[in-house]
C-alpha cells in the first residue's frame, strides 16, 4: 500500500475514458490498442490511416510525457531481458488470439457489458495475478 496513488490513477483513467469516448463518438471506433497495432502489421484498406494516426498520437504523447512527466517512465521493476522477451511474445500472441487487451476488452468491452470482454478481463487479471504470485513469492521467497 506504500505506493497508493488513487487520485492520479483516477485522473489518468478519466483521460483514457475521454480518449476512447472521442474515438467512439467522432470516429465510430473501439479503442483497442492491440488490435490497432496488429492492424498495421496486416493493413486493410480504409483501416490503416486512422490506426497510424492513433499510434503516432500515442508516440507523440509519450515524447511529451518524457519532457514534462518523466516519472511516468520510472519503471521501478525491470525484469531481465529474456523474461521481457518471453513476456512480450505472450502479450503479442495472447492479445491477438483473445482479440483484445486491457483497452479493447478491459475498458471498452467491460463498459459495453460484453460477455466476451468481461470473461477476457477476468481471465487476464487472474492469470496476471497468478504469475505475479509465482514470480514474487515462490521464486524469491
Amino acid at each position, binding site marked *: *500500500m506504500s*505506493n*497508493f496513488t*488513487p487520485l*492520479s*490513477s*483516477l*485522473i*489518468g*483513467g*478519466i*483521460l*483514457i475514458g*475521454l*480518449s*476512447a*469516448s472521442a474515438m467512439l*463518438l467522432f470516429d*465510430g471506433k*473501439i479503442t*483497442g*490498442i492491440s*488490435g490497432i*497495432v496488429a492492424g498495421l502489421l496486416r493493413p*486493410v484498406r480504409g483501416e490503416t*490511416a486512422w490506426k497510424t*494516426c*492513433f499510434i503516432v*498520437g*500515442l508516440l*507523440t*504523447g*509519450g515524447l*511529451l510525457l518524457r519532457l514534462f*512527466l518523466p516519472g511516468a517512465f520510472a*519503471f521501478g*521493476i525491470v*525484469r531481465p531481458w529474456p523474461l521481457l*522477451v*518471453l*513476456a*512480450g511474445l505472450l*502479450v503479442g*500472441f*495472447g492479445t*491477438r*488470439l*483473445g482479440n483484445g487487451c486491457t483497452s479493447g*476488452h478491459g*475498458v471498452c468491452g*467491460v*463498459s*459495453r457489458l460484453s460477455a*466476451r470482454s468481461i470473461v*477476457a*478481463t477476468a481471465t487476464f487479471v487472474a492469470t496476471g*495475478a*497468478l*504469475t505475479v504470485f509465482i514470480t*514474487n513469492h515462490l521464486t524469491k521467497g
Partner: protein
Amino acid sequence: MRALATSFISGIVFSFGLGISGMTRPIKVIGFLDFLGSWDPSLAFVMIGAISIFFVAFRQSRKMVSPLVAARFAIPTRNDLDSQLLLGSALFGVGWGLGGFCPGPAIVSLAAAAPPAAIFTAAMISGMWLHSWSLRARLSEVRDTATVLGTGADA
C-alpha cells in the same frame, strides 16, 4: 480528415492517461496484480475512471445514427465464449504479470527510449506477427482467408 485528427489527438490524450495513471510503470502494474502480497489497488481507479466515462459514451452512441465525423460505427457484435478467447486472454495475463507492460504502455514507453520497453515491444510485435503467421498457415488449408480474417475482432 477530421476523423484522422480525432485519432491523433485521442492517441495523445490516451498516452497522457496511461502516463499519469501509472500504467506505464511495471512496478504499479505488478503491485496491482499482487493481490496476495503488498497489494497496490491504484490501478483499480484507472478502470473506475475509464469505464465510468466510456459507459456513458457508449450509451450515447446507441442513440446516434452515425458517428460525428465518420460514416458508421464499427462495434464488435460477437457474444460467444470460445476457447481462443480464454486461452489468448490467459496467455496475455501471464505476459502482463511477467513484464508489467500491456500493449498501450509498451508503445508509449518507446518514446522513453528505454531498452526494457524497446525489448518488450519488439517481442510483442513479434508475438502478434507469429499469431498472424500461424493463422495464415492454418487458413491456407481452408482457402477462405478473406471471410475469416475480416470478422470477429473485439478490439
